[in-house]
């Protein structure tokens, strides 16, 4: 392919390669300038892409035009070693001084290593919190409880009037807005339209349910006002609030847990207990 003097096509290829590398250098300089001028993500990306594309084109043309493709062969020995080799290697292990012959000591060593391995598992316990409850317990319990006031996402306590019809208000236990399993929502529905009573009861149509989907725990904040349904954005489960927040479509299998509420002596809404069931996704020991 390549003779003593470069052929015409070789000279042309060399020119193209050189041009490509020059373009690459220009791209690199362009990137530096763009960076210096704070020229923005798009120009930075384009300049870097040009720099690397120039390299790629140059190298590719070089590999295809100036270097022969293919034409070589390499032998392949196979992987079964000659029996003599195998025998010699095995003999090394069977030699009289070889530790593999002392079965009793090996057993003791194995015992020691096993004990060490098991002991090494113990510090894994530290990955669990010491000061909190067992995980299943904490999944069942939420910060809600008798007398806990309902607040909005700003921490303001809510009166029944703060939840008008046709809207959805996210409510939280007072003092625990950021707790993962606590969020709930309050809606005001027409009690005459209830096909099934809400699990947590209602105050003149004011109902509070857990916000977490019973399928995988996403907040069901898509409220379809007229239909009285909420929808989960993650896997499209929908719950019929007029039928006790029963799942009517999608992969969720259990109704949303309700929150029993009352109006406290201060006029604010407060819970009379925890959710009627553990909120969110199911787990093995869920009651």
């Amino acid at each position: 392919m390549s003779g003593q003097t470069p052929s015409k096509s070789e000279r042309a290829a060399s020119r193209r390669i050189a041009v490509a590398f020059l373009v690459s250098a220009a791209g690199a300089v362009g990137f530096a300038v763009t960076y210096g001028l704070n020229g923005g993500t798009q120009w930075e990306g384009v300049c870097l892409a040009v720099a690397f594309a120039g390299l790629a084109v140059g190298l590719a043309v070089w590999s295809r035009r100036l270097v022969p493709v293919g034409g070589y062969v390499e032998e392949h020995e196979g992987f079964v070693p000659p029996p003599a080799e195998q025998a010699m290697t095995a003999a090394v292990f069977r030699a009289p001084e070889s530790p593999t012959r002392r079965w009793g000591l090996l057993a003791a060593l194995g015992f020691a290593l096993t004990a060490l391995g098991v002991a090494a598992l113990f510090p894994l316990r530290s990955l669990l919190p010491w000061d909190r409850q067992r995980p299943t317990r904490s999944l069942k319990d939420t910060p809600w409880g008798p007398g806990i006031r309902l607040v909005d996402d700003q921490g303001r306590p809510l009166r029944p009037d703060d939840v008008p019809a046709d809207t959805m208000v996210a409510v939280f236990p007072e003092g625990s807005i950021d707790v993962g399993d606590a969020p709930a929502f309050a809606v005001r529905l027409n009690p005459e339209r209830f096909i099934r009573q809400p699990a947590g009861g209602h105050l003149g149509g004011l109902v509070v349910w857990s916000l977490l989907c019973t399928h995988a725990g996403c907040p069901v904040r898509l409220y379809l006002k007229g239909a009285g349904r909420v929808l989960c954005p993650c896997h499209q489960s929908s719950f019929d609030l007029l039928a006790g927040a029963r799942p009517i479509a999608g992969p969720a299998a259990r109704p949303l847990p309700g929150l029993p509420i009352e109006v406290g002596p201060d006029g604010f809404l407060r819970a009379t207990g925890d959710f009627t069931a553990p909120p969110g996704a199911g787990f093995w020991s869920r009651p």
Partner: protein
Amino acid sequence: MIMGPLARALDDRLRLSPITRRALAKIFPDHWSFMLGEIALYSFIALILTGVYLTFFFDASSADRVYQGSYAPLDGATTSAAYASTVRLSWDVRAGLLIRQTHHWAALAFVAAIVLHLSRIYFTGAFRKPRELNWLIGVTMLALALANGFTGYSMPDDLLSGLGLRIITSVVESIPLVGTWLAALALGGEFPSDEMIPRIFITHVLLVPAILVALISLHLGILVRQKHSQFPGPGRTEHNVVGSRFWPGYTLRTLALFAWVLAVLFALGGLVQINPVWLYGPFAPAESSSPAQPDWYVAWGDGALRLFPPWEFRIGGYLVPAPFFPGVVLGGLSFVALYLWPFIERWCTRDRRPHQLLDRPRNHPVRVGIGVGALTFYVVLVVAAGDDILARLLRVPVYDLLALFRVLVLVLPIVTGVLAFLIARALCRGEAASLGELTRADLRRGARPAPRRPTGEDEPEVPVRHRPGERIELWPQGEVWRWRYRNEAGQLTLTNNRAVTSEEEAVETARLAYPGVDRVVVPGPPPPPARALRVALRRWGRATAAGSLLVAALLGRRRERRRRRDGEDEPPPPEQADAISGGGDPT
């Protein structure tokens, strides 16, 4: 090889030149499908380069931090440090967004390239003995790539990643008996915990990448040790590799690919927005966004979660929740099937021989059918994860689409699998070279049940008597010897990839590469300039040729005997032709 003083100094201390010479002479087959894995490798290098830069600016902590910067809708807002630092990285660090987006695009390309590479290995049977080990390592790396992709997606603590993290937590919690403990062990408490982000971070930047680097090294080390497999073709046998040498041809080619991968990723990173966390906002337990999807490589799990019907049941009073089957069982089965596939296929075909020649996919219609069916299954799941987006774009009710996908995910894989099986069989039985050339007669032949020849059987190597026009040519070149294979019928000349020090060695390697070819020409062309040493060498070479060939033939015969012992009920290849008769014939 001329080396600089530094190279010489290193060589004097480490004796590198023999290794280097062999390494540079390694043969890479010239077929595009062998470079798919390299796309994955170079995406991974891009991931590491960009990822290291990102760690300088990312603050892996759930502690409160006030973001102050040029993104006005969050300026002065208190969020987690992880989220605030990601927004700062995107809006206030120069080139930060480019690097972050390039990193994310590289992750998408990395997993895509792995899937393509795995498909190539699967459909060509490259996982068969002796390469099962590399298949297992590869599948492990796929799992780790998914894990690292997901942890990376979860780290910025934005709303979308928080939803994803909550879903995966729910999936883990659905495991009977140990689920809640596993989830608590991983998160350090109940979701969302303060330990979550730091743990995800250390997993993402240290644990998994370290294992990946180790496994990639092992993967490549085994590849070099076992040498490449290759497609069948003229001059290619079970005992050689035909292609380009690593240096110089393949080095330039693979560096070109590296640069091109970087060019494409930076172009994407600069021009196409990915994961705009500033729009998604920080995670809050009571907030959600729609549409909510994970990255494509875990979307098959999300699609399965959407499609699986609301079935839950209790065992002895204990709950098995709905996400258990689509989340845990499907994911587990998928990887178990991938891990076991080489052994399942070996058990079914009873093929225990080592294979260096790849199958054309068509020659294994069953494998093709299963593979295409499985790919279809996962593609349907990924598409189903976007059912809400599709419903909006197509303006159809989302639950109608859901019902459709529930049917499709079961029916479509069977349809495409059977179709692929029939087409592969038609290609295999007919004369068509590609899909486009398939005739109706071929298809009809493919649909007929009676197989013309059993699949899974390689044709025995054609004995030398039936391969006229093939010969090995040896010649001295200065102090060293070279050889080449010539097939005059196929107009093919393949030169040995490296020089060897003696004629015996040249004969031996040639015999290894072409065990059936016995016409050896010593010395072969090109005619070297006649010098005293060369003439002496040649004479000496002629004299020893017969003897060395005899040795080689004996070795070969012993190998044949061993192979026969290993090869069970396989009919032994016909005994090699008499070596001496060919060896003494200088043409």
